């Protein structure tokens, strides 16, 4: 039944114009009918209608105007109907965003369903609806699903992460949190999907893998095959950053080291560099992937092969050969990809595939691209031992009916001939025989290859040149004719009798030749004129005259040039002396090399390798590190149990300390020793926990400071006020400041400050040792606060109330992630305005800290208030309502990207270190021509800090200016550097927030290119 209806649809379709007007009335009535069916009470009718609609979608027909009718059925009990509605929804939701929102509540309900399949499919559809408004709902759903009991739902959550990321990249930070959580998942079902999400969202966060590395290696065999591919590719990348190279020069030597030991005296052993010992984790990866070479999935086998290629010691590489050759039995497309990879491998390591040479023999039924690849591999595999077999095989190919393939074979023979000198003569003779072939392409290709070969050793081959001259009349392919002429000219001294005769013939046919042949005729004439001017002078004159009036300007130019060069006259004195040396210079022989030579810059098995050009999203495989990074990062300890006892012991120690310090009161030295101890404790703690997340870190610092305070509050010594001030400044970051300020007694303030100073001292010690990130985030005061204020509400629209705002560039006191704003409200009416406030209901997502309502504003008076807005690191406008007693005005604030930052200070070394971490897609840069008045250091600094709220980093290098800041909401680093290279300047911005980075780049660019203040 369905089949019939589908057919009738297609008939009608083919008759009418695709999107034409004629189709419209037909569509209308058709869809009316479907609409009716969808609105009926009968499930079967609805189902039938949905099936037809899916048929329309499958054919690519537009069925979007049925959206309202379809979306009603989203809550249907019939599961098949529901699924079809889902299919429809995912297809059209992007186009009909408002209507799509109607279905959201159904999914939210389904997310709580006891049936895991329903939960999962609800999440799938919810996350597939590409409607930006529901991003927060999606985020919430993903977070919830990531902790679901069912691994299937968690898997779906991992997929949803990628969808949300592509919909709204700003959610990256939150998504990374979810990925981090899911990476810890022990289910094999989840592993592949979450690694996929990792690769898509944050491939540079290799630190998230450390703890999960061993688990992933061990789970790998049980993961479903598609997941295996993704995980293996990711682990390849990981391993290249974490382990040292197993490809040591002395690797072979090491294998025989036992022998060497017996042979030689002790000293020699000592002299030897430390033998390479493979990291056990490196070995684990190789060991656990090896069985996967037996997988039935070709993608898995290829993935393992590339892993071995990029990671294993050279002598272990041979195990992949058989598996790769096995893949050649698979489908045509698989063969194509595998052969490409083998071609790249065979250039570097012939030995690997030589025993399997016969597997690469070409069959007449192979597709052309497969034939060419096999030819390529055979050429790469050729060596002295097997060349005769290969050449015999090539002879068969030359006779192939597929002439393009025959031509490629001739090229391959040429390659073999240059690479293996023993067979050069044999090959040449074979090629000369081909010159009498009936097929033009074969002959042409042979001539071209012979030409290349002769260039390497011309003297012995004058008879070949003679032979070619004899055949010349029968050859019609221009490229071949040109090649022969070039050979004649180049080696005219070897064939002194024949060359002038050829020139004579050519003079006759000059006008009928192709352009490239004409050029070579002119060339030949010139060369003969120089070597044998007696015989050819007139001929040359004639040809040059012909060339002078040729239609092609290249030939006219060449003729003019040659004439000036070779015919001596008064004008061209100097150059013609060198004519012989110019024209008859010995030319280097062309190098015949494989087309796959440069492909090894790409990771094997990737799309980029196949295309030999970088595809978007290609992740570079890094070089081996010279020194292995810390191995212990992969040690998995159960984190919680380790931490807790540690804390206890620490507090014990602390209590001891307090006893001690109370016993030795008001002794500076004791406090010092005290602090020393604490330092040790902290260091110990640091060693235990390698990667605490930032919140945790802050909390710990805070608690440490507090504890020190508690212990030492009896101490009392004086600190100069400027130090107090400094300490306070630095410690603003920690909420500690509130505690200090809340204690009013001067005695307390003093001792607090000393303690704070201690804390700062400790914290600095800390940072220098282990937490580079923390140092870098020292907040500092803004370098420059612009005075300009922006209009928020004009007095005309505000019925007399006018408002202006400006960015104070100070850390906001209302919340850590808020940008602080100063609002100036003025009353331009002649009556007092009452109860000025911001309405409670905020229209957009931003979190706004409102100013306290102003009870009364007298006429012509103005008042300044401050407020905070959490822009969430985006330049979206914050919309809110400014209300008076009578009226409401909608106003909006659009922040410039530079205002979403807070300045920070850091050392130059830290800056470069952080910059080094934020490369790749996190880096945006541009080169500009700087206006002269901006060249001085002050003006660059001024320009940049006026555009963005950044801190200036003292720079050791001249002409490089560095600025650092962090985003207000997420605290991500933003590093700006301007390198002046007169008259250009290179601006580089490094930040995880790539969107902000590029916006900032644009603004800095305009600031530096514009003249004026």
């Amino acid at each position, binding site marked *: 039944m*369905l*089949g019939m209806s*589908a*057919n009738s649809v297609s008939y009608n379709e083919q008759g009418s114009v695709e999107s034409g007007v004629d189709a419209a009335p037909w569509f209308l009535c058709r869809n009316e009918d479907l609409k009716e069916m969808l609105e009926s009470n009968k499930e*079967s009718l609805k189902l039938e209608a949905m099936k037809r609609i899916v048929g329309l979608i*499958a*054919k*690519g027909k537009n069925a979007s105007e049925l959206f309202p009718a379809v979306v009603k059925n989203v809550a249907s009990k019939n*599961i*098949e*109907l529901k*699924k*079809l509605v*889902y*299919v429809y929804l995912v*297809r059209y939701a992007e186009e009909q965003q408002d209507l799509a929102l109607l279905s959201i509540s159904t999914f939210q309900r389904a997310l709580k369903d006891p049936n895991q399949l329903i939960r*999962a499919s609800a999440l*799938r559809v919810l*996350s*597939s609806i590409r409607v930006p408004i529901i991003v927060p709902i999606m985020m919430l759903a993903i977070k919830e699903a990531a902790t679901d009991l*069912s691994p*299937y739902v968690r898997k*779906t959550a991992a*997929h949803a992460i*990628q*969808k949300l990321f592509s919909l709204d990249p700003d959610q990256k930070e939150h998504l990374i949190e979810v990925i981090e959580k899911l990476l810890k998942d022990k289910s094999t079902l989840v592993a592949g999907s979450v690694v*996929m999400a990792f690769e898509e969202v944050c491939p540079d966060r290799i630190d998230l893998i450390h703890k999960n590395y061993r688990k992933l290696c061990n789970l790998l065999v049980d993961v*479903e*095959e598609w997941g295996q591919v993704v995980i293996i*590719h990711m682990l390849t990348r990981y391993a290249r950053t974490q382990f040292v190279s197993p490809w040591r020069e002395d690797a072979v030597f090491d294998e025989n080291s036992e022998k060497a030991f017996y042979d030689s005296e002790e000293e020699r052993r000592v002299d030897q560099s430390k033998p390479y010992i493979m990291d056990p984790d490196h070995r684990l990866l190789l060991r656990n992937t090896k069985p996967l070479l037996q*997988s*039935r*999935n*070709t*993608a898995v086998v*290829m*993935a393992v092969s590339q892993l071995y290629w990029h990671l294993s010691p050279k002598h272990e590489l041979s195990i992949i050969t*058989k*598996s790769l050759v096995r893949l050649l*039995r698979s*489908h*045509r*497309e698989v063969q194509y*990809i*595998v052969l490409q990879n083998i071609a790249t491998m065979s250039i570097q390591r012939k030995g690997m595939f030589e025993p399997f040479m*016969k*597997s690469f*023999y070409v*069959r*007449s*039924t192979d*597709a052309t*691209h497969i034939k060419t690849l096999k030819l390529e591999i055979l050429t790469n595999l050729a060596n002295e031992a097997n060349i005769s077999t290969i050449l015999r095989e090539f002879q068969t190919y030359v006779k192939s*009916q597929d002439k393009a393939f025959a031509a490629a074979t001739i090229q391959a023979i040429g390659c073999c001939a240059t690479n293996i000198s023993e067979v050069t003569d044999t090959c040449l003779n074979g090629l000369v025989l081909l010159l009498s072939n*009936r097929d033009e392409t074969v002959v042409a290709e042979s001539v071209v290859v012979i030409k290349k070969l002769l260039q390497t050793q011309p003297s012995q081959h004058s008879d070949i040149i003679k032979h070619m001259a004899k055949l010349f009349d029968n050859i019609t392919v221009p490229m071949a004719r040109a090649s022969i002429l070039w050979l004649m000219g180049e080696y005219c001294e070897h064939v002194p009798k024949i060359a002038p005769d050829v020139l004579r013939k050519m003079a006759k046919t000059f006008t009928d030749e192709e352009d490239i042949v004409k050029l070579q005729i002119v060339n030949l004439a010139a060369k003969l004129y120089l070597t044998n001017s007696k015989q050819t002078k007139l001929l040359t004159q004639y040809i040059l005259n012909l060339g002078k009036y040729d239609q092609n300007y290249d030939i006219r130019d060449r003729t003019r040039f040659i004439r000036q060069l070779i015919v001596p006259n008064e004008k061209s004195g100097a150059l013609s002396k060198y004519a012989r040396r110019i024209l008859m210079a010995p030319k280097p022989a062309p190098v015949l090399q494989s087309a796959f030579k440069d492909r090894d810059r790409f990771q094997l098995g*990737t*799309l980029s390798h196949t*295309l030999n050009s970088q*595809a978007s*999203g290609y992740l570079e495989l890094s070089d081996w590190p010279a020194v292995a990074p810390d191995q212990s990062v992969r040690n998995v300890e159960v984190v919680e149990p380790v931490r807790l006892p540690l804390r206890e012991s620490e507090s014990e120690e602390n209590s001891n300390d307090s006893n001690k310090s109370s016993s030795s009161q008001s002794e500076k030295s004791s406090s010092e020793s005290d602090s020393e101890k604490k330092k040790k404790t902290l260091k110990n703690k640091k060693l235990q926990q390698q990667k605490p997340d930032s919140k945790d870190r802050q909390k710990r610092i805070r608690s440490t400071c507090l504890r020190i305070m508690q212990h030492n509050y009896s101490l009392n010594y004086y600190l100069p006020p400027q130090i107090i001030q400094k300490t306070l400044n630095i410690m603003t970051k920690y909420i500690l400041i509130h505690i200090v300020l809340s204690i009013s007694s001067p005695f307390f303030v003093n001792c607090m400050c000393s303690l704070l100073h201690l804390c700062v001292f400790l914290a600095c010690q800390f940072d220098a040792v282990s937490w580079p990130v923390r140092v870098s985030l020292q907040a500092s005061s803004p370098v420059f606060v612009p005075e300009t204020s922006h209009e928020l509400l004009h007095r005309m629209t505000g019925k007399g109330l006018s408002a202006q705002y400006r960015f104070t560039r100070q850390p906001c006191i209302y919340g850590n992630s808020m940008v602080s704003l100063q609002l100036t409200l003025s009353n331009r009416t002649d009556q007092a305005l009452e109860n000025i406030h911001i309405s409670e209901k905020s229209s957009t997502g931003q979190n706004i800290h409102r100013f306290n309502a102003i009870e009364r504003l007298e006429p012509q008076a103005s008042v300044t208030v401050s407020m905070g807005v959490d822009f969430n690191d985006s330049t979206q406008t914050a919309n809110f309502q400014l209300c008076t007693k009578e009226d409401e005005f909608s106003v909006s604030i659009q922040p410039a990207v530079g205002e979403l930052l807070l300045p920070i200070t850091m050392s130059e070394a830290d800056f470069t270190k952080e910059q080094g971490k934020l490369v790749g897609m996190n880096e945006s840069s541009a080169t500009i021509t700087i206006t002269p008045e901006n060249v001085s250091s002050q003006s660059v600094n001024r320009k940049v800090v006026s555009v963005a709220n950044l801190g200036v980093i003292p720079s050791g290098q001249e002409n490089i200016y560095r600025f650092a800041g962090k985003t207000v909401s997420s605290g991500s680093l933003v590093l700006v550097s301007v390198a002046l290279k007169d008259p250009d300047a290179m601006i580089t911005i490094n930040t995880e927030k790539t969107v902000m980075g590029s916006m900032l780049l644009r603004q800095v660019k305009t600031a530096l290119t514009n003249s004026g203040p």
Partner: protein
Amino acid sequence: MIHSLFLINASGDIFLEKHWKSVVSRSVCDYFFEALERATEPENVPPVIPTPHHFLINVLRHRIYFVAVIQSEVPPLFVIEFLHRVVDTFQDYFGVCTEAAIKDNVVVVYELLEEMLDNGFPLATESNILKELIKPPTILRTVVNTITGSTNVGEQLPTGQLSVVPWRRTGVKYTNNEAYFDVVEEIDAIIDKSGSTITAEIQGVVDACVKLTGMPDLTLSFMNPRLLDDVSFHPCVRFKRWEAERILSFIPPDGNFRLLSYHVSSQNLVAIPVYVKHNISFREGSSQGRFELTLGPKQTMGKAVESVLVSSQLPRGVLNANLNPSQGTYTFDPVTKLLSWDVGKINPQKLPSLKGSMSLQTGASKPDENPTINIQFKIQQLAISGLKVNRLDMYGEKYKPFKGIKYMTKAGKFQVRT
């Protein structure tokens, strides 16, 4: 990963499209059509085609191009393997994978594609799991569904998804418990003019059809496992056990599956079961050519060579062929110049032959190459490598299953150069 999928038939019509992310306009296929036009044969279309914004990865099966649209870096084999898996699934569901079958079952196709990929990443490709989610269409089920209003779509998560044996569902029940294994070997060979073997190798597979109740655990052992040089397994096979004891131990999927594919080590001499005597010649200056072909059995271990089919791509200059087969029928397509001769069974007493003349284009020069002859054949009850199954045991269930093993040898890519 995979953005969209387009199905294109031999005449270049897009007859199905499916998008997993934002919709990609079907105009992207124009790049594919361009490549198709450039290719002389349908097989010559490059599998990976770059376009300014996307990459098209295509596979050709059953005269249908499956074109996947990719936007960023992905291992190409991943996509190719997946597309082949899609085709296999269609074949499994509808019996054949043709344009008509896909169009008739467009809703099931859509449901399948929806389950197989989520956001372009494979979700469920195991046929066992898919069949629980979407039941294959049968006439009986269609009738029942229309009467009872039940659907083809499963309401519960397939048990396989979560278990450690995702390939097998729980609660399988059969009245007749049976397990059949087919050992099928293919010979790939290139024979040169003089009849000597240039290259020959044997590839084999063990296909199984297992219909057993419950959760049986099977072990299969070979008499001569050393023959197997390189193997690849269905995921159900326990690799460690194979490494240690050379025994295949596995919990089988339900129904048909490929247990094992193998390659017989190249050290062993490969027995070539047929020989060809040929005499194909063209004379210079004459518009006639001679064609003689005789087939004969060789090293067949006493088994009959059946279903023999000879095909050859004759040179372009050949206008027609006037041949006389001693048995079977032959056809010659003057457009594609493809000669095929359906021989049938080779009778060792009376060798089949095909003799006659070819007429050439007048004035055309003599073709400089003789055609290659492709041969297909089958030999029942013989694994040419000599591989033999020793025994099959079942653990974990109490009943006694019916067991059967079948051997067969086929020609793979068997070519004779003349």
